């Protein structure tokens, strides 16, 4: 038997397992749990009253609304794009498939600042379409549209990446069967394809949403930091922090951290219930 084929349990290095677990526990505590604790501690540092005042401040509320609006537009669009991309990659053979796959991954490998900057270069006052936009009184940069565009660009791989391996694995036989049974293309998609990918889709949407709401770099470039108008929650945290309003900054940050924790719980729940249907648990 080759060493690689031996079951893992046969490897016994006394103390090593304990040392590794302890080391990662310490690192986790220092780098993840401690900061998380600090966020909430500082948020409530001056009491619950100050905390509530900070999160109900008009600028904070409008940042919250803006974040929800941006995510509310970007996430559904990316879900649709993700399904379409995964569908054509998984179920069809065509030229340029590899290129499309690489393009989908591009936002993962590119700094978010670049993802924001490209929109400024296109639609900013000095950009390609800048003069035209000014002439027609259309505002993209330093406006909600720009935030949405930047967010879409940064988050578009999440849903597609989650669906592609699953759909490739499922093949197109069920769809073919539905067609031979007399279903239309639309019915087949609605009754066969979509139910088969629902959990993976939800999982992808969850991750996409978490990133969309938390995105800083890309939106920072296109936002212009106009308080109450173009600051999303992460940008609002920065603004408050730079103003030495620590309670406000940490209170707002605690909202984002809570969002992260909720996402984590939902994600874990999905992984636990529907492990077989999620790409995260497959060999790529």
């Amino acid at each position, binding site marked *: 038997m080759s060493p690689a084929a031996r079951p893992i349990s046969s490897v016994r290095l006394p103390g090593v397992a304990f040392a590794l677990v302890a080391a990662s526990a310490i690192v986790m505590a220092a780098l993840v749990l401690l900061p998380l604790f600090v966020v909430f501690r500082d948020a409530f540092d001056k009491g619950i009253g100050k905390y509530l005042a900070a999160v109900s401040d008009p600028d904070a509320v409008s940042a919250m609304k803006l974040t929800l609006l941006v995510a509310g537009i970007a996430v559904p669009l990316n879900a649709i794009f993700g399904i379409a991309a995964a569908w054509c990659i998984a179920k069809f053979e065509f030229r340029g498939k590899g290129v499309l796959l690489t393009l989908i991954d591009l936002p993962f490998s590119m700094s978010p600042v670049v993802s924001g900057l490209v929109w400024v270069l296109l639609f900013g006052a000095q950009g390609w379409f800048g003069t035209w936009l000014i002439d027609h009184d259309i505002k993209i940069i330093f406006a909600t549209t720009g935030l949405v565009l930047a967010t879409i660009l940064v988050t578009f791989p999440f849903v597609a990446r989650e669906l592609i391996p699953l759909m490739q694995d499922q093949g197109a036989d*069920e769809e*073919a*069967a539905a*067609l*031979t*049974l007399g279903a239309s293309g639309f019915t087949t998609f609605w009754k066969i394809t979509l139910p*088969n990918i629902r959990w993976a889709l939800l999982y992808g949407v969850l991750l996409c949403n978490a990133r969309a709401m938390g995105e800083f770099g890309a939106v920072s470039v296109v936002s212009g930091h106009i308080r109450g108008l173009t600051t999303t929650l992460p940008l609002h945290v920065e603004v408050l922090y730079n103003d030495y309003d620590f309670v406000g900054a940490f209170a707002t940050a605690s909202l984002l951290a809570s969002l992260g924790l909720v996402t984590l719980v939902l994600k874990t729940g999905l992984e636990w219930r529907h492990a077989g249907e999620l790409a995260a648990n497959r060999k790529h």
Partner: protein
Amino acid sequence: MNLQPTANTEAKSPLSLEISGISKSFGRFPALRNVSLQARDKEFLALLGPSGSGKTTLLRVLAGLERPDAGDVRFDGEDFLSIPVRHRRVGMVFQQYALFRHMSVAQNIAFGLTVRPRSVRPSKSEVADRVADLLCLVQLEGLGSRFPAQLSGGQRQRVALARALAIEPKMLLLDEPFGALDAKVRRELRRWLRDLHDRAGVTTVFVTHDQDEALDLADRVAILKDGELRQLGAPNDVYENPADPFVYDFLGAACRLPGIVEGGRLRVADWETKAETDAPQGRVEVYFRPNEVVLAPLDGAGLAGEVRAVAARGPDVRIECLIEGQIFELESRGPGIPAGVAPGLALRIKPLRPKVYAAQPRV
């Protein structure tokens, strides 16, 4: 329903499926080359061939899931290729069954009925009745609320069949219907499927790579290789008269020796016999089945050989013989090893029905 077996009426039934000149390539790989064949109404036709022979592609062309590059398919006189998949009313059973995993067995079977346009859709109670009938037909009563993952392979296959039959198909297409099942279940399902076909009275085309299955089940067998139709005929005809060495070899165990046909005589090594009148002349390849031989003493007629080993294998006896420098595994009906046959015995082996093909030019 027609309870008469279709085999008896086969000669009289009209042609229902006519495939002519179908070609299909995937990129540079030609999957089908100019295939033409016909099936009669209610016939059970097997497409037999090794993997990569194009049989599944042909089935998918019939279903409408692949478009051929050239050729014509007519069904009951209609131009089948111009009809989209969903309007062809073919019941297809996929190799891995392709059951809808998120639907119960009953929902799977009902699918074809529930997706019909509202004007021709049966009512809920009609659908329920039809599902119950079909569950009964495929002997899965009471399993309607199960999900595909909770069924055995044989049960899944029957659900797939019931689902295909639910739309009252004009033609039934089966892709390796027994491929994913173990040997014992396969045999049981074979007879059952044949009965079902005879009762339902639907023209059926099924794909298999198992020659036993094809010969046992089908009214006629089409043998494909490398996308070409090699032979089409009744199981017995193709088995008795294989058109070429490939078909001979594919349909069962084969022994091969070089020989010569001259002046109406066939000579193989030191054995000479009368050649068939239509046999090719000159250098030939002689084929015979390892179980169609007579063992004779050295002074008898046949190929000189020497027994190397003998072993009883279930109902048969395997006799390993050295003939003309080649080892052949001959079979003789058991039980029990024929008297006197033992390693080292020199004897003569007479093929009962040698089949002669023109020698292929050596590559």
